[in-house]
């Protein structure tokens, strides 16, 4: 059995002090959310917080793992890291640009052209083009380096 890369923790007195302080702050936050019930709608609020957790653990992380699994089997070794980096950056940029691209927000205030005023489709395509040009250059450099190593 290989040692796991992620070690378990040891918990000392410092941990229990942090639990006391942090626990108090959490209780303060939960109380605040419940007291502000009319504005927060505490059931909805807590449902959204827990849903964020579940969305990550049950959807986002498995999808990313599946992508990694496919990637390591499809790509030649020299290309794995550049392509992985390209995919990571692309996904993150799309997350940030998605609302603008879809016009969520702008469609709420159709008489206000200053909300999401830009051409987000072109912007995203531009950023992605730059990212993938960098990926290809990086991959080519790695191939050249490995050829040199092989030649000796």
């Amino acid at each position, binding site marked *: 059995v*290989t*040692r796991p*890369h*992620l*070690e*378990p*923790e*040891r*918990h*000392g007195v410092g*941990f*229990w*002090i*942090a639990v006391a*302080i*942090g*626990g*108090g*702050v*959490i209780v303060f*936050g*939960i109380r*605040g959310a419940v007291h502000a019930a009319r*504005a*927060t*709608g505490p059931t*909805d*609020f807590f449902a*959204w*917080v*827990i*849903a*964020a*957790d579940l969305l990550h*653990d049950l959807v*986002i*992380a498995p999808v*990313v793992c599946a992508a*990694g699994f496919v990637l390591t089997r499809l790509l030649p070794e020299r290309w794995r890291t550049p392509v*992985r*980096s390209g995919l*990571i*950056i692309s996904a*993150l*940029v799309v*997350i*940030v640009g998605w*609302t*603008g691209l879809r016009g*969520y927000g702008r469609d*709420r*205030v159709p*008489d206000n052209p*200053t*909300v*999401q*005023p*830009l051409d987000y489709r072109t*912007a995203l395509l531009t*950023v992605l083009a730059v990212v993938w040009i960098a990926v290809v250059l990086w991959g080519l450099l790695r191939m050249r380096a490995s050829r040199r190593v092989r030649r000796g």
Partner: protein
Amino acid sequence: MSARLDPRRIQGRFTSPLHDERVAAVLGIALGVTFTVCFFTGLWSHLVQSPPSWFSRPPRPAGLYRVTQGVHVATGLATIPLLLAKLWVVYPKLFAWPPFRSVAVAVERVALLPLIGGGLFLVGTGLANINLWYPWPFSFRTAHYWAAWITIGALIIHVGAKWSSTRNALSRDSKPHDADSPGARADRRAFLGTIGAASVLITLTTVGQTVGPLRRLAMLAPRRPDTGPQGFPINRTARTAGVLVAAQGHKYRLIVTGAVARELSLTRDELAALPQHETTLPIACVEGWSASPRWRGVQVRELLARAGVVGGAAVRVESLQRRRAYRTSMLEPAETRDPDTLLALEVDAEPLHIDHGYPVRLIGPNRPGVLQTKWVTRLVVL
């Protein structure tokens, strides 16, 4: 149970060298910094928007809110890559078996629910909010605020749990583990570099919404400070606010009332005939954009003096808007005394556009944009 699904074996099936204690430690420290920065700048924003009795909003430095809120939004955006990367790196730990080896581990793991749920909730709702998109049934501001307390509490517990292991992971003499080949090390460096690059790229393509020199790069920013009538954005149009008729009608008056020696009632022309004061002040929105045009109008302290109010006084500024949360805003005594607190009639040498608050709007130093009340019709001295 088949060996594949044996819960004791799942964690070991994650074979990528990126699921690593040092990568987790580096990302953890970065997240500790960004969450702390966002927490305190957010707390500050909350304080200046709704000051409790023990806090008085300082009118100086005039551009402080622009900086703190710009930092809040930019840091929140830069956190997205860090947070998702960190969650992926430590994902195998979700399958640790047995799940609770001790009471301490149980407490630590239970605290991960508010930490991860709260962290994702904060960046998710924040990202939607800067786009003015509200796909949930609760108030953004209230929910974001209380979620921040819950998350920061969970972060304190998490830091307590990880303090020594983070130090160990990053210390020079930490022993490389079995899977630590040079290739694995290069892989981890490339991964951290990629996450850093993603944060930088997201910052570069959005931060121009408040940092002028980077404006042209801000192609993913939800707002651009150079768009809109008279060259800067608006959050609520006159039409949406329902003030088109009242703001442009001949019945418009500015009333100065409340605890005054004599009540004032002025038309826009009468306001324009009073001594005018000019100043450059930022309009800095809670959503993270800002612009800094030149305003011209009547000092609030001048109006108060004409109404027989001496010294600073607290003033409630009321808009022509009929409803909604930001119909009124408060000026504190230090703000009404400030020479740059104006009822502006002009911006960049033109009469205010109706969407910017024609006939007059409030503009004051170091106030969040939502408190720069537009279509002002009453000053009530308290």
